[in-house]
């Protein structure tokens, strides 16, 4: 242990930029990821996946694979027994009035039909990964290809090939949400702007692909599963139900996880069900690590939406209403329900006062991999639409685009603001607090908007440079329920253990949660041992996703620490024969004010579990408490991004000259960790805006199937960012925390569209940027009229 000195923020660890507890393990390579799980008897699995986007399976012959030396077993659908059934819905449909919802979930292996390239058809278990993959080539399959519902608009047509029999137009869902009277707003409007927008979000591509290992002990009938998952507690409950086990016989551990970004949440992924099933069937240990190439098809992704949207404004540029009808590419199955398109719909409001609203989406089944949330989870699409509509309206009315935004912002006195539409947490979308004018003004000031527009840009343009500026706003609902929990316990050696069900994929939970405990118990965050994601240590909770960890788990941690503090003060007061108010917890001891008598915390914990005497009825032994926090609804973070960009007029390559983020996540537990979340989110947003494009052809074949084709941004593509923040505490939890995990990724695309349009002076050529992602090639097409 180094002799570093940690510094607090004033008197408390809350708000301190503490370096992370988990770093030494990660930096030295000692950290355990699922791929590191080893055993002499470990077997390895590989999956045969469909090469067709839509086909009947007429015959599968696995006999040559089974005969290969080193192959332990080969399974197809007919081996699965009652496991061969549609998997449960993970997220039921939101209670939108009049909702049309056609549930179709996947089976663990394809039965008579495959519905996307990559759908698993057979599982090989062998003595090594190499042999398992060799055996895949031994399996013979006769396919009868079927017409493919590939392209989104094509798939929505009434006579399109049906991904699921009986669903004409491949309707997975239709949901209409409205408030006020949009038709009246439009009729009275001074300006109406209508456009069609195409927004595609990409693939999460965490650096660690998915992975799962399972061991079934036939002597105890107990199973241990290690999974690279964001939701170990949910996975345990779901797996137990699907496999017909009691939860107490199933332990799920999420060790270190190399990034999640939404796609490692419970899906009932086939592999997550089949590996434990195989381990039980074989009464042994089986492991599967996803290939990167597999990840492009086997792991969920977001993809595209097509929006026909319009905005109605009065003569002063005030928004009277917004209408948006859109198609959403759902993929072949919908276990995750409607989270993504509901978020898109709810993000159309932004930080603006929108009196009338009418939006209908149709989620469409396609012969493509399942679409489910990826950092931002559909908010990007809605934010793109509203920010672009405002930009175009600003241009058409001659009002400056920052001024038009300013005029329409909700004001600090307006909160709480209930938009009367259903959000992803099944409550009415309500903004609890924020100061949108301050955020926008600060972003404009930090990027030097006025100065750039009036002086710098004209001068640079005169010198032949293509430079542009953009500013956009976003609002992000964070910290949704249902709940999380935490158990804090003072240990006999004076250290404190903290266990929570929320998993960790790099967000710093081992440190930020330790800070909350340290504040209550008068110790250093280095003295708190945090366990996340081991259902034997803490079995309840939903998981880490939707920017909810700090808000929901954090407040549960705080509540548990407060309760333990109360017990420690009460016990110390009894030992000192004084009032609890006369006891201080500091530097790892309980100290009596005045007399300075002290009891080290560890000893106090021992005294709380006596070997003789009586523990009074109703009291609990030890200095331990388990508490839960379930917010009544999500809490609203917000921010603005601003950027100055230069475009090379010949290559259409871009250089970001300046990038500013002003964000508001309420109370920040650890500003250093928050900064990291913003940087990483923006990087993914830049990837989505300009580098990452998923390309499927009309046969549902993936053309961008490697990292050489699907470009993740590098250190040369992500600029140095300037971060600033405002603080409007959440009104929905004691610590005032709002989530920040997804914020950086959400508004980057409309920022790029605005700034690049500006740099290339596209509107003067009659061109609006109405699509994402962009690229040098695409900009050239748009700029030269080839589009």
């Amino acid at each position, binding site marked *: 242990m*180094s002799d570093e000195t940690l510094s607090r923020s004033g008197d408390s660890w809350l708000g301190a*930029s503490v*370096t*992370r507890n*988990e*770093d*030494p393990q*990660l*930096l*030295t*390579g*000692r*950290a355990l*990821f699922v*791929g*590191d799980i*080893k055993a002499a008897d470990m077997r390895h699995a590989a999956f045969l996946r469909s090469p067709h986007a839509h086909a009947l399976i007429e015959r599968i012959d696995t006999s040559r694979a089974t005969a290969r030396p080193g192959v332990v077993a080969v399974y197809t659908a007919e081996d699965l027994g009652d496991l061969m059934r549609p998997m449960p819905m993970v997220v039921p449909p939101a209670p939108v009035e009049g909702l049309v919802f056609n549930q179709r979930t996947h089976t663990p292996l394809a039965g008579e039909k495959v519905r996307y390239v990559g759908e698993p058809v057979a599982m090989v278990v062998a003595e090594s990964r*190499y042999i398992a993959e060799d055996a895949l080539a031994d399996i013979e399959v006769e396919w009868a290809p079927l017409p493919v519902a590939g392209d989104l608009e094509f798939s929505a047509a009434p006579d399109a090939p049906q991904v699921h029999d009986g669903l004409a137009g491949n309707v997975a869902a239709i949901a209409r949400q409205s408030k006020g009277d949009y038709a009246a707003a439009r009729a009275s409007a001074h300006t109406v702007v209508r456009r069609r927008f195409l927004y595609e979000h990409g693939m*999460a591509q*965490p*650096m*660690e*692909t998915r992975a799962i290992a399972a061991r079934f002990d036939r002597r105890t009938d107990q199973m241990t599963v290690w999974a690279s998952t964001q939701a170990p507690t949910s996975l345990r409950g779901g797996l137990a139900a699907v496999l017909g086990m009691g939860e107490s016989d199933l332990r799920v551990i999420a060790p*270190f996880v*190399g*990034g999640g*970004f939404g796609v490692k949440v419970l899906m009932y992924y086939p592999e997550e069900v089949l590996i434990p099933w195989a381990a039980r069937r074989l009464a042994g240990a089986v492991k599967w*690590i996803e*290939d*990167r*190439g597999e990840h492009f098809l086997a792991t969920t992704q977001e993809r595209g939406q097509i929006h026909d949207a319009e905005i109605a404004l009065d003569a002063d540029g005030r928004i009277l209403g917004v209408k948006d009808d859109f198609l959403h590419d759902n993929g072949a199955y919908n276990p995750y329900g409607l989270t993504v398109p509901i978020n898109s719909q709810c993000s159309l409001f932004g930080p603006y006062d929108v009196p009338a609203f009418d939006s209908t989406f149709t989620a469409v089944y396609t012969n493509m991999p399942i679409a489910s949330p990826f950092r931002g989870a559909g908010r990007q699409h809605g934010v793109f639409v509203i920010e672009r509509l405002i930009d175009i309206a600003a241009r058409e009315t001659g009002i400056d685009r920052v001024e038009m935004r300013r005029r329409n912002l909700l004001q600090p006195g307006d909160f709480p603001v209930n938009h009367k539409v259903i959000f992803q947490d099944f409550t009415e979308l309500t903004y609890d607090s924020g100061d949108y004018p301050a955020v926008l003004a600060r972003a404009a000031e930090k990027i030097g908007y006025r100065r750039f527009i009036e002086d710098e840009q004209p001068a640079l343009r005169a010198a032949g440079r293509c430079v542009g500026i953009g500013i956009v706003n976003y609002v992000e609902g964070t910290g949704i329920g249902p709940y999380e929990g935490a158990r804090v316990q003072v240990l006999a050696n004076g250290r404190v253990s903290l266990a929570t069900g929320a998993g960790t*994929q*790099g*967000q*710093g939970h081992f440190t930020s949660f330790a800070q909350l405990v340290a504040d209550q118990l008068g110790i250093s965050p280095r003295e708190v041992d945090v366990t996340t994601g081991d259902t034997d240590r803490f079995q309840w909770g939903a998981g880490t996703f939707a920017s909810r960890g700090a808000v929901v788990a954090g407040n549960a941690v705080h509540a548990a620490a407060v309760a333990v503090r109360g017990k420690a003060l009460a016990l110390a007061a009894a030992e000192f024969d004084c009032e609890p108010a006369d006891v201080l917890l500091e530097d790892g001891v309980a100290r009596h004010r005045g007399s300075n008598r002290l009891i080290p915390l560890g000893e106090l914990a021992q005294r709380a579990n006596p070997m003789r005497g009586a523990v009074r009825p109703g009291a609990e032994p030890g200095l331990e408490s388990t508490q839960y926090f379930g917010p009544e609804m999500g809490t609203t973070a917000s921010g603005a991004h601003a950027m100055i960009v230069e475009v090379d007029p010949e290559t259409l390559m871009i250089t970001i000259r300046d990038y500013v983020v002003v964000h508001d996540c309420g109370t920040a537990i650890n*500003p*250093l*960790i928050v*900064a*990291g979340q913003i*940087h*990483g*989110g*923006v*990087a*993914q947003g830049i990837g989505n805006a300009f580098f990452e494009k998923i390309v499927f052809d009309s046969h549902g074949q993936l053309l961008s199937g*490697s*990292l*050489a084709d699907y470009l*993740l941004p*590098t*250190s*040369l593509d*992500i600029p*140095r*960012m*300037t*971060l600033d*923040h405002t603080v409007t505490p959440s009104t929905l939890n004691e610590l005032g925390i709002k989530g920040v995990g997804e914020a*950086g990724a959400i508004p980057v695309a409309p920022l790029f569209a605005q700034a690049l349009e500006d740099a290339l002076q596209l509107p003067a050529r009659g061109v609006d940027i109405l699509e994402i992602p962009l690229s040098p090639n695409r900009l050239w097409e748009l700029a030269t009229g080839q589009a």
Partner: protein
Amino acid sequence: MSAGTVKVVTRVNGIEYEREVEPRLLLSDFLRGHLDLTGTRVGCEHGVCGACTVQVDGLPVRSCLMFAVQVNARDVSTVESLAAPDGTLHPLQQAFRDRHALQCGYCTAGILMTMSAFLADNPTPDEAAVREALSGNLCRCTGYQHIVDAVLDVAGSPQRERPE
């Protein structure tokens, strides 16, 4: 030597190993599976992400694009060689901790092995040179800024202000 295997004699992190391996065994799998050095991570197995980067005879290489047999009679260094035996972090590792230059940590070993070799050849780089050298390692969590700061700290460049 059994049919289909080849003998490999290699020095890894200063220790000599002799093993029988299939010719097609990847160096990444050899290090992680046969030698139990799991600090080297595997991200893509097609040479793009850099997570698997180790040093062979002092030069950073993608261990997913090499076969174990190719390091016969050669020296290999992995991330496990950086920290001192008593656990004291290498200056680059300490700088990564101080600057919050890692989040999930999966790309970190590959970056440490790339950057330690880079700094050995380029002791006082500027930010542009660091970003160029780093561009063969993908990170999906950090956005690179804190990593660049950490490398510049070790290179002795002027302290960067922490954002906020």
